């Protein structure tokens, strides 16, 4: 069985209008909902959801561009370590896009794993740089906030896929 027969990703089968709605919901979510939805320092990462789904739809090239733009958007919101999210999400967009082009299986479990893994990787990078060498703070945040945020982001991503993507 060739890789091409593994199936077109669901997000790639979405109409442009549906995908635009998904983008809009993620941007609004990043602007409005992440604060109110925060639980114990953890909140869903709507930009990451957008980058992962965008990379699944567009592949490595589009994923890296979307990751860079989404990362800059996040950096602009946070006003600290400008370029850090851009770097992390560019890499994630590229890797997820590359996986989609080579190994992707059109299954909800795969999307879930991609979201959770991407969030953990991004948090390792962001918390590591933000801690500035204070590893105690890094450990405290990473071992509590990162897993919960990954779980939260995965649930939000699955919900969006269900509601907007019609998966």
């Amino acid at each position, binding site marked *: 069985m060739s890789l091409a027969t593994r199936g077109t990703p669901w997000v790639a089968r979405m109409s442009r209008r549906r995908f635009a709605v998904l983008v809009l919901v993620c941007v609004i979510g990043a*602007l409005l909902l992440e604060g109110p939805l925060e639980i114990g320092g953890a909140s869903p990462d709507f930009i990451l959801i957008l980058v992962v789904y965008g990379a699944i739809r567009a592949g490595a*090239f589009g994923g*890296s*561009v979307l990751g860079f733009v989404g990362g800059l958007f996040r950096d*602009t919101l946070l006003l600290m370590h400008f*370029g850090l999210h*851009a770097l992390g999400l*560019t890499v994630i967009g*590229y890797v997820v896009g590359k996986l989609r082009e080579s190994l992707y299986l059109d299954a909800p479990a795969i999307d879930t794993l991609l979201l959770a893994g991407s969030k953990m990787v991004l948090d390792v990078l962001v918390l590591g740089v933000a801690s500035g060498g204070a590893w105690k703070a890094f450990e405290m945040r990473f071992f509590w906030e990162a897993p919960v945020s990954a779980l939260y982001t995965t649930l939000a991503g699955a919900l969006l896929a269900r509601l907007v993507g019609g998966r």
Partner: protein
Amino acid sequence: MALFRSAWRAEVMAATLAAASLVLLALPEARQDAIARAANHVVLLPLAGARDVMGGYLGLREENRRLRTQLQAARLELGATEGLRIQNRDLSRMLEFREDQPVDLVPTRVIDRDFGTLPTTFVIDVGREDGVQIDQPVVTLEGLIGKTVDVGRSASEVMLYSHPEFSASAMLVGGDHLEYGVVRAAPDGDVELYLPLRSRSEPGDRIVTSGYGGTFPRGIPIGAVERGREDQRLGLQKIDVVRPVVDLGSVGVAFVLRRLVDPGESVGDVPRLYWPGYAYPPMAGEAFGLAVPDSLPADSAASDLAPAAGP
């Protein structure tokens, strides 16, 4: 362009963008901040406007305002509650004090005072309607603060012990002796005890009202001897500087002692307010003044006396 059409274009793009991110990340912090703020203003300003509109639409703005108002109200209430708590504590102590005394005490609050270096007069919120008359002692839980000098319908003026015209007949309770004199305020703000020339006094000796003079009943604490002062009256009197027991700066509530005898008649030692169980203020090591030993309160002045040593 050929590069972008090649099989490596995704890698090239990703590497370029990653490098751009690293360049941004490597910029000086001030520069990063400036770029981020500029981007924030230019790119996100419309989004922020939309966010405000949507936030308002969703009722978040209204809720925010309501919560801020509630927070302010809660802060004000907290401050008022703290004030009430302190007032409640003071009033509870006064009530307990008042109930324990065999004399007629009128509770009152200080509603005005002069704001000099040391206050010399208070205005209190009781007057003729409450049975207050001129020349009645005004005390706190700790001791004497002054006497009424002007009584209105519902307010009175109190001359404090720091007033230049104040004087009270006083008694020094020494280790094994009593001395009688007069307490007055000195021009320099000190409170002084004038004693006969050959009197004995030591720093720390208690000074209470003597009961003579018809104004103050015997036994109200005034203070303690702080130090002796060189005779300034041609060697005719001994003068001691007194450390008052009441800090006038912190007095907020007080009692007026209503007269139980006719004006002009000596009040003697009728209300033994501050030395319950004693016929007169106890001297150091003294036990013979104890009238009702079983009724001694745990925190009375007697508790710091030496063990009983008979006369």
